């Protein structure tokens, strides 16, 4: 997924970073060198890894629920145009409310347990999936729909045998975006209060001015998002069949 050229470029950027730190003699607590971050990452691996696992679990459960809710809502809205006319504009407007603002409310309503955290992740994952899936359903080629009508397909058959599989590439684009959001959502949720997780680790590191640990957490988040992204691409390649060049286009890397 990451091509050779971009890996070399990233290595180059890290090298420049390292060089600037050494030449300009920037204090460690302000901006640590990449080498120092790497050493810290290796040394604190055993204390850090439980936090990572907690975040992975949270992100995956949240993503799974978000995908299911998103797809159900998309199918429902696609199949009944009256409800769509009411709900769709509200859906769009609701996305202008930043999730971060909702978080304190969710904690007031649902406490510090798992539920408010999952709701936050769900909220960030939900929207890209609903939009992508509905776009996919709608973009089904009119020739194919006409053909299905001519051969006597019912509405249900037209949906499940034509529109649903037709939308697979779009749905997977939506899930890929949602997956990267889900890690972010999990970390934000953990900031608000949790016992374990990358978010917790970050808050602790920040309050003790361990900038190197903050960077370890940031790199962990980036790697997690990339990992999740490539897992979903892999699943996509298995599920989306027979589209050759078409399937390749939906990748963003």
């Amino acid at each position: 997924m990451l091509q050779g050229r971009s890996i070399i470029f990233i290595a180059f950027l890290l090298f420049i970073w390292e060089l600037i730190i050494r030449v300009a003699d920037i204090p460690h607590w302000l901006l640590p060198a990449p080498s120092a971050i790497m050493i810290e990452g290796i040394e604190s691996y055993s204390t850090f890894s439980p936090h990572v696992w907690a975040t992975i679990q949270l992100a995956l459960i949240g993503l799974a629920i978000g995908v299911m809710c998103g797809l159900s809502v998309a199918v429902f809205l696609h199949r009944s145009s009256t409800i769509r006319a009411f709900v769709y504009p509200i859906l769009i407007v609701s996305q202008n409310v930043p999730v971060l603002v909702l978080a304190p409310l969710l904690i007031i309503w649902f406490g510090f347990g798992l539920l408010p955290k999952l709701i936050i992740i769900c909220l960030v994952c939900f929207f890209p999936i609903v939009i992508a899936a509905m776009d996919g359903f709608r973009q089904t080629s009119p020739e194919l729909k006409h053909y299905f009508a001519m051969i006597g397909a019912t509405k249900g058959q037209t949906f499940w045998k034509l529109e649903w599989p037709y939308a697979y590439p779009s749905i997977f684009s939506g899930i890929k975006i949602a997956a990267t959001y889900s890690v972010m959502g999990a970390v934000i949720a953990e900031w608000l209060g949790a016992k374990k997780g990358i978010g917790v680790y970050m808050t602790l590191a920040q309050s003790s001015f361990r900038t190197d640990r903050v960077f370890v957490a940031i790199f962990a988040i980036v790697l997690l998002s990339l990992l999740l992204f490539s897992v979903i691409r892999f699943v996509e390649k298995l599920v989306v069949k027979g589209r050759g060049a078409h399937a390749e286009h939906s990748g963003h890397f």
Partner: protein
Amino acid sequence: MLNIQDISKSFGSLEVVKNLSFTVQEGEFVAIIGPSGSGKSTLFQLIGGITPVDHGTILLNGDNIQRQTGIIGYMPQQPCLLPWRTILENVMIVEELQRRPNKELAKAWLEKVGLASFENAYPHALSGGMQQRVSFLRAIVSGKPILCLDEPFSALDEFTRLEMQAWLLSIWEEHKKSILFVTHSIEEALFLADRIIVLTKRPATVKEEIIVPFARPRFEEIRHSTQFTQLKQQLFQYLKEEKDDAYVD
């Protein structure tokens, strides 16, 4: 067999089909030609049952098939294969929708026309001509009493089109299914059909009907005969008259 009796259809104030009547007999190959925009596609929508007629009746073996979809076998202009299904799965789709997929029959047909090796391939791996063959098989395998072909070769290049015409002819002459074939190519109609119905411009009705005199089985040679050329000119004249009128409008 298929009996179209005095049907009319308008969309708003636009009359598309008016008092159109014709029949297709059992085992007959009927071609319909007409100027472009003469409502040929609408005719298929009416027969296919996805659009209701304003008046008149459409009978198939004596039963009224208005507003009933899935009664006829249909082959559209574009192959309309589902890209995520293999060729075999595509061929079986119509029967699958009616919950009685017949894998053996589908396989036998693929075998018969030399597409067996593509059984598990996906449509994007096939050329346009090949895809249309699959599309035709799909219509045949659906086991409907009549096949309606809507300009099936018009999107193909000239050479592939000639090849496909010969291919269709060879299969049809062996199995004698009733076929209603819409085309805008005079030559195609003459080469394939038993009878040609010429439609007028909109609103479409029957202008002329020609019985094609060539014996079957037919071979490429008939394309070069004098009779073929004469009929071609005659049909061209009919279409030209319709076109000229259209400009006067």
